[in-house]
């Protein structure tokens, strides 16, 4: 009998401990101000967002803004959605995650937010392209962009009298010349498969239509045709890279470029902080990847690195808009761009970091095309497919697999697009 009582004690004790510690965490704060909760996905920008948060709360008496910058934010955001503890504003990238969240109907239409008129048209178009099926309304405020192409060691270029290439042939000639002078033209970190996307995206910007993925979904074309030129040209880069490019990681490649082991590095502006951490005094500049045979055809590879969306579940639209207005004030935009070496999506005369000098004309004129991989479903792992292709060198196999896999990983989306088109025809017929 005694045994029975005692053995019943421990589960009860366990539950009691659990209940106690659970109760301790449910404190409620009494604050009359309207609460706005924002989650943004760039942990490297945590400092500048803390500053912006404090500044906002100092200047606003009726709204309390909290900005969270969690590590591994995409996982955290998804769990927040599952828990239904949805923030009011999210700051994410203009990529497939945005498309998916939009497709899951999580964002609010913010067409009536007046700040949209100050955003560069090209970035709003990028967001439009990211919609699986064209939607009415606007769902994000593009905030910061980044640019990718070729970073080069300005000191090395000046010492050797090398000039910036503007066509594919000039680029190959330059690589040849650098090699002849006993230097390493390119360095790749293809052990980290995602870096394979850097040259791929930059070349696709010049050679493939920006909305190719949407066109394929509509059944108008296939990747076999659209990507053929890019696929053939990207292979030509390998002989100019270091031996065994698949044995070195992104970090290795950044270190090598920082130490002057190569003259150029095909990557985005986002790599500059990592490079400078190794060699703080390095003089880095960049140019647009010249993959096209005509200089005019080349476009800068630039996408939306950070944009803000108001969640559908947000109850205080006006307060959320006030936060957006604040973030879009010129001095705050400049503050963010300085901290993150980024390109502002807002119209206006902002100061840009020096390593973007070579890309400046393209940025000013809006001659840009988005990263192709922002349209690829993550689970298709196109980066690994490109790595495989670069190792094996068979364009037909690669492109054939690309088309086949695309259908497999996107069939629900393709179905939706087809349904949408059919409905559109019906409406048009009426």
């Amino acid at each position, binding site marked *: 009998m005694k045994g029975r009582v005692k*053995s019943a004690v421990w589960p009860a004790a366990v539950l009691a401990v659990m209940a106690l510690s659970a109760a301790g965490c449910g404190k409620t704060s009494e604050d009359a101000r309207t609460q706005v909760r924002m989650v943004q996905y760039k942990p490297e920008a945590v400092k500048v967002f803390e500053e912006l948060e404090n500044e906002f709360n100092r200047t606003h008496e009726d709204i309390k803004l909290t900005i969270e910058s969690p590590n591994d934010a995409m996982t955290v955001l998804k769990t927040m959605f599952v828990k239904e503890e949805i923030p009011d504003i999210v700051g994410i990238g203009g990529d497939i995650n945005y498309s998916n969240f939009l497709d899951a109907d999580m964002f609010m239409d913010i067409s009536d937010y007046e700040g949209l008129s100050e955003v560069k048209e090209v970035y709003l178009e990028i967001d439009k392209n990211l919609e699986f099926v064209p939607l009415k309304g606007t769902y994000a405020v593009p905030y910061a962009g980044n640019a990718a192409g070729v970073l080069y060691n300005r000191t090395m270029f000046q010492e050797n009298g090398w000039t910036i290439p503007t066509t594919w042939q000039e680029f190959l000639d330059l690589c040849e010349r650098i090699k002849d002078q006993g230097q390493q033209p390119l360095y790749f970190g293809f052990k980290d498969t995602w870096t394979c996307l850097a040259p791929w995206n930059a070349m696709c910007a010049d050679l493939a239509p920006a909305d190719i993925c949407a066109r394929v979904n509509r059944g108008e074309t296939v990747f076999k045709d659209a990507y053929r030129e890019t696929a053939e040209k990207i292979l030509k880069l390998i002989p100019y890279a270091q031996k065994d490019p698949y*044995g070195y990681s992104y970090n290795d490649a950044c270190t090598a470029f920082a130490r002057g082991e190569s003259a150029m590095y095909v990557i985005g502006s986002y790599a500059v902080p990592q490079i400078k951490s190794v060699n703080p005094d390095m003089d880095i500049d960049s140019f647009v990847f010249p993959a096209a045979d005509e200089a005019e055809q080349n476009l800068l590879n630039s996408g939306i690195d950070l944009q803000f969306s108001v969640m559908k579940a947000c109850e205080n639209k006006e307060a959320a808009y006030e936060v957006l207005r604040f973030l879009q004030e010129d001095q705050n935009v400049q503050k963010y761009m300085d901290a993150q070496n980024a390109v502002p999506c807002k119209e206006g005369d902002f100061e840009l970091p020096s390593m973007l000098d070579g890309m400046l004309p393209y940025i000013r004129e809006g001659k840009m095309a988005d990263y192709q991989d922002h349209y690829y479903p993550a689970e298709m792992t196109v980066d*690994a497919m490109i790595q495989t292709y670069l190792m094996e060198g068979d364009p037909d196999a690669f492109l054939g697999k690309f088309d086949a896999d695309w259908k497999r990983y996107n069939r629900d989306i393709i179905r939706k697009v087809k349904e949408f088109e059919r409905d559109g025809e019906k409406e048009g017929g009426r």
Partner: protein
Amino acid sequence: MEKTNERKRTFLLITIPVLILFFLFNTLPLLKGFVYSFTNFKGYGSYDWVGLRNYTDLFTDGRIGKSYLFTFKYAVVCTIIVNVLSLVLAFGLNSRIKAKSALRGVYFLPNVLGGLVVGYIFSFIFTYILPAAGSAMGSEFLSQNMLSNTKTAWAAIVAVGAWQSIAMNTIIYISGLQTVPEDVYEAGGLDGATGWKRFRHLTFPLILPFFTINMVLCMKNFLMVFDQIMALTKGGPAQSTESISYLIYQNGMNGGQFGFQSANAFLFFVVIVVISVFQLTVLGKKEEQL
């Protein structure tokens, strides 16, 4: 009679709450995940029912097939290497040696290190140190980074996986050796049983339960290999080292394939349970014979 009932009752009173707890936080969510395997759920938001599509896809998806092959090859090789080495190590560390505690502490270290540290250190060794040593010795084979070659990458992952997990299995073998009474050896010593013979007929049968535990834990840990892949190759080169768990995490969590990967996870679960129950019954029978 009263005594037997009291004993039975106590056992039940211990077992039932444990069962409830386990059901609530393991089986119930597993069943929910099983339900998702019939949908195209992305992990959040709305979803549609797709019937058995995810399961039929499993058998036509080349990546899934390749990942099963890789994972099983890896697990079998690793299990053998680790069990042999940790058994040897456990005997060594359990024999009459100097600085026993210090040595045991040292051999345990790899198990405490986190995935990123081990991954980065070994990446460095594979990328810079081994090739340099290889060229110095004039070996063409060694002068390339093992991780960038589809033929050798898996062996490199086996080496790192074994390096990290030998510690755990050694501990279990050591705690097993502790249960072997000294007098067994004394008796054995009198009969002139030494070396291999002594191990085969005296020690091994006594630590067989621990051998069972280690076989099962090893198979489980290696079949679910994830950290080493993440830290060393991220599934590369050329997708040759994608393990099943890697696909489930990467595509289920980071990608939008939660439904499909739930189906994969469920199939995988069934496969490992079958293997392990088989292991447990075969080894259990052996234990009984002795």
